[in-house]
């Protein structure tokens, strides 16, 4: 007997087995989303990444922001997949309802089906995500092992958050099922599969204009205005301006609604009539297609933003490396029994390296005045507090500076020049002329000083060259006065030299680095922001009195050390490695976003084709040949790809250029050269989208029987 043990559950089971495709599609989408997000979370919470991204740093914030975009995109993607699945299930549900099955029983069965699918795919997704994270983590580890000791490990937090993500999307889908089953009208359920989602509003060109205007206002108030106010009024507008980014989203949405719904004869009636059928078909899928286009746009923005991180960082690194005048630069306090010139030369001989242009000079450390700009007041205005005793500066005489750099400068008594990097500009936190007196502790006197300008020599710049890292060139007379009038802080010896290049040079530099670190004094074992004066007055856990982190055996390791030697040969050798973890992480986010873009675009193309099946059949009856129908199909599918990709790419390109400009108020030559590289990345993403478009079109053509 055919149905001997047939029960309702068996019927559901058979329907599931016979109609694998919608189940597979739904399960694939859920599994894919869970895999991407859980792998990302597992990776993000592994010590490898947690310890590499500085706490509270920009990179961590950017990674989190992009993750939010990717996670939200994946939720929307899953909602879309669940919606398609429920549309497919609506016929079965409708038939069971019409044949007298109790709604509660159907709801139970449907929830059971969904729960079964979700559990299966979530488990597979999390396992696959873990494997993916492990695989990529190990690759990270290998690439970054010279720059970090951290290893990839699974953490409870990472796996828990992955499971939580799966639970969140399960809850979202369950809510969708409840809403679906809440429909009281059987006819609505039965017709769900055939339901169109037209945009009901009358869409005119004001939609486009208002869309562009809202986007511009959103970017202006959300991004440009706060930067301008900080720059010119020294006032923080606060986080409320971020709300205006919503206007950008609304603006983009309106532009897309316009592109889908507003078509007029205008000046080219021929074109209008040629595309009239396509316009009409799109308009009737309006709401859902616009929602999809919006998600794709946001994911393209996220994907490109992450991808841009790679060329942007590489370029800035190359630009900085090119500014260094000498191959070797280091300084040390005079209490240290550091490597002498003879020792350096002996080491050079060992490695068959020739030392050239070895120079030494002495900087005096002296307490001076400055302006504290660490805080903002209650209204958001930046507090600028002048302090007579602010930080300890390093000063060098003009004659010694000339000996070191070859730059001759007449420095008048009572004036000073700041040693700075090329192209550096003042910002609201850092001014060149903040220091106006130096304190002579032996005499307990203040020596008035006046800022005279900047001198450029990158090798002598400590950190960013301001505040506790600032270095000044003063007159020989003032230098003598300070030398005689201070005893509070140790002088610092500065060494600069070059050598011949070659394979052995790297080994030489590695050993010199190790020797330097091993022989340093306790006073030198301090972090980059250490300041003697602040350390005396601050609490012991302050950022101004932390010990250095460094690895004498491994100069490539990211360090936080005020006296770290600056060996260009090692930076060139390990530069990319230092950034490897960052680069790979951003590449990973980019891959997540772009993979989601590909899948959503592909799935949408399929449903565009399938929901238009009747129209295609009718047009065929009216005499449309395959070539005409193929053209029509391509126009429908193109809508899913072209505008979101172009708009997303445009938005992120503009944003990045604004970022380059507003970061330091100037777009450098290197940054200008970078723009074509960014455009090349955009081109690659467009090619990727074109590939998926071709594949989607081919598949839909096959489904509709339009192959040649």
């Amino acid at each position, binding site marked *: *007997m*055919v*149905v*001997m*043990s*047939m*029960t*309702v559950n068996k*019927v559901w089971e*058979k*329907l*599931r*087995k*016979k*109609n694998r495709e919608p189940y597979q599609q739904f399960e694939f989408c859920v599994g894919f989303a869970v895999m991407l997000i859980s792998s990302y979370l597992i990776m993000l919470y592994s010590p490898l990444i947690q310890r590499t991204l500085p706490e509270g740093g920009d990179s961590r914030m950017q990674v989190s922001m992009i993750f939010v975009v990717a996670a939200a995109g994946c939720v929307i993607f899953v909602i879309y997949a669940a919606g398609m699945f429920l549309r497919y299930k609506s*016929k*079965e549900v*409708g*038939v*069971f*309802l*019409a*044949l*007298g*099955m*109790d*709604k*509660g029983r159907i709801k139970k069965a449907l929830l059971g089906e969904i729960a079964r699918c979700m559990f299966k795919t979530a488990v597979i997704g999390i396992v696959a995500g873990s494997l993916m994270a492990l695989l990529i983590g190990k690759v990270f580890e290998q690439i970054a092992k010279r720059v970090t000791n951290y290893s990839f490990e699974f953490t409870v937090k990472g796996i828990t958050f992955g499971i939580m993500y799966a639970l969140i999307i399960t809850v979202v889908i369950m809510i969708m099922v409840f809403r679906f089953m809440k429909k*009281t*009208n*059987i*006819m609505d359920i*039965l017709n769900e599969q055939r339901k169109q989602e037209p945009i009901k509003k009358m869409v005119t060109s004001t939609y486009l204009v208002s869309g562009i205007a809202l986007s511009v206002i959103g970017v202006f108030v959300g991004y440009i205005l706060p930067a301008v106010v900080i720059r010119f009024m020294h006032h923080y507008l606060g986080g409320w301006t971020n709300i205006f980014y919503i206007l950008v989203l609304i603006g983009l949405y309106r532009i897309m609604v316009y592109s889908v719904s507003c078509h007029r004869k205008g000046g080219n009636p021929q074109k209008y009539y040629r595309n009239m059928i396509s316009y009409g078909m799109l308009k009737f899928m309006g709401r859902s297609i616009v929602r999809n286009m919006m998600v794709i746009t946001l994911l393209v923005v996220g994907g490109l933003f992450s991808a841009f991180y790679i060329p942007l960082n590489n370029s800035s690194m190359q630009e900085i490396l090119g500014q260094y005048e000498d191959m070797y630069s280091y300084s040390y306090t005079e209490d240290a029994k550091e490597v002498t010139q003879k020792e350096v030369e002996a080491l050079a001989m060992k490695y068959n390296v020739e030392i050239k242009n070895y120079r030494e000079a002495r900087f005096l450390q002296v307490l001076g005045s400055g302006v504290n700009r660490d805080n903002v007041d209650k209204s958001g205005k930046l507090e600028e507090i002048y302090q007579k005793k602010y930080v300890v500066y390093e000063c060098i005489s003009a004659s010694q500076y000339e000996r070191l750099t070859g730059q001759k400068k007449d420095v008048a008594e009572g004036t000073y020049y700041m040693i700075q990097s090329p192209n550096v500009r003042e910002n609201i936190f850092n001014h060149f002329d903040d220091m106006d007196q130096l304190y002579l502790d032996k005499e307990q006197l203040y020596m008035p000083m006046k800022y005279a300008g900047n001198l450029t020599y990158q090798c002598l710049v400590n950190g960013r060259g301001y505040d506790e890292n600032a270095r000044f060139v003063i007159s020989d007379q003032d230098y003598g006065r300070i030398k005689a009038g201070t005893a509070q802080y140790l002088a610092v010896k500065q060494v600069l030299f070059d050598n011949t290049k070659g394979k052995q040079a790297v080994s030489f530099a590695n050993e010199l680095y190790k020797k330097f670190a091993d022989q340093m004094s306790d006073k030198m074992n301090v972090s980059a922001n250490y300041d003697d004066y602040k350390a005396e007055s601050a609490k012991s856990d302050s950022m101004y009195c932390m010990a250095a982190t460094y690895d004498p055996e491994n100069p490539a390791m990211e360090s936080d050390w005020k006296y770290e030697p600056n060996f260009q040969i090692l930076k060139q050798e390990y530069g990319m490695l230092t950034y490897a973890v960052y680069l790979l992480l951003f590449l990973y986010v980019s891959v997540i976003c772009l993979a989601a873009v590909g899948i959503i675009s592909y799935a949408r193309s399929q449903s565009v084709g399938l929901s238009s099946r009747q129209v295609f059949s009718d047009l065929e009856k009216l005499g449309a040949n395959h070539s005409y129908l193929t053209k029509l199909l391509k126009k429908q599918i193109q809508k899913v790809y072209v505008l979101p990709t172009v708009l997303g790419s445009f938005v992120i390109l503009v944003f990045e250029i604004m970022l380059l400009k507003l970061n330091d108020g100037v777009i450098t030559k290197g940054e200008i050269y970078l723009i074509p590289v960014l455009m090349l990345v955009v081109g690659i993403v467009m090619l990727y989208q074109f590939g998926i478009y071709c594949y989607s079109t081919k598949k839909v053509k096959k489904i509709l029987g339009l192959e040649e």
Partner: protein
Amino acid sequence: MLQVKHLYKSYQSGTIKYEVLKDVSFEVMEGEFVAVMGPSGSGKTTLLNCISCFIPYDNGEILLKGTSLSKLNEKQIAKVRNEKLGFVFQDFMLLDGLTVFENVCIPKIIDEAPYEEMEKKAENLLKLFGIDDIKDKYPAEISGGQKQRTAVARALMNNPFLILADEPTGNLDSKSSEAVIGAFVKAQKEMKATTFMVTHDSFSASYCDRVIVMKDGKIYKELIRSGSQRMFMDRLLEVLGAMNGGDEHDCK
């Protein structure tokens, strides 16, 4: 068997209210085969959906063997649909993943009836409608007429009081239509089935005992069959022609 009393139904679209059924009353006797005809927008499908409890109505009463359907809760309505009503849809509404035989069994499966009785009943119905040779085929493998006869067999599985059919021949060619209408007639004759059918097709309606003609949400005329099917069809065409002609006259 079925009593419809002063039925009103309207739809709201924005601020405009469309009255689709306006005080519709009629009765269908046990064993009767009744058709509802009328132009598009006359309210015939809405009437069927109200009787099926697929959509709610504004006013009036629908009694099935004396039971008012509007007073039933969701569970009771489901029971009525399963045991006392049978449905045949224009687009068949067969489940693609089940065979013809399994599709026919669905009402009994929902009812959790013993399988022996269910199988026997299904076999009999398939034989009665001449589709027993395709019982193991899937809907995608059979013709439109066969699909609709499967749907008729499914509708009769629980010996319902009333079969409600919405344009059952609407998607079929004339030969298939004849076979489907033949199935309804067989059901009436051999199983004493009562059928209430909405149709556009005068040929299908001419097999019925009575035809209710609707226009603008009201009953325009009721025709009772006398004489041969051919003669009844001529009468139907005449009435429908006059109704349309009337429209034409009104326009002028």
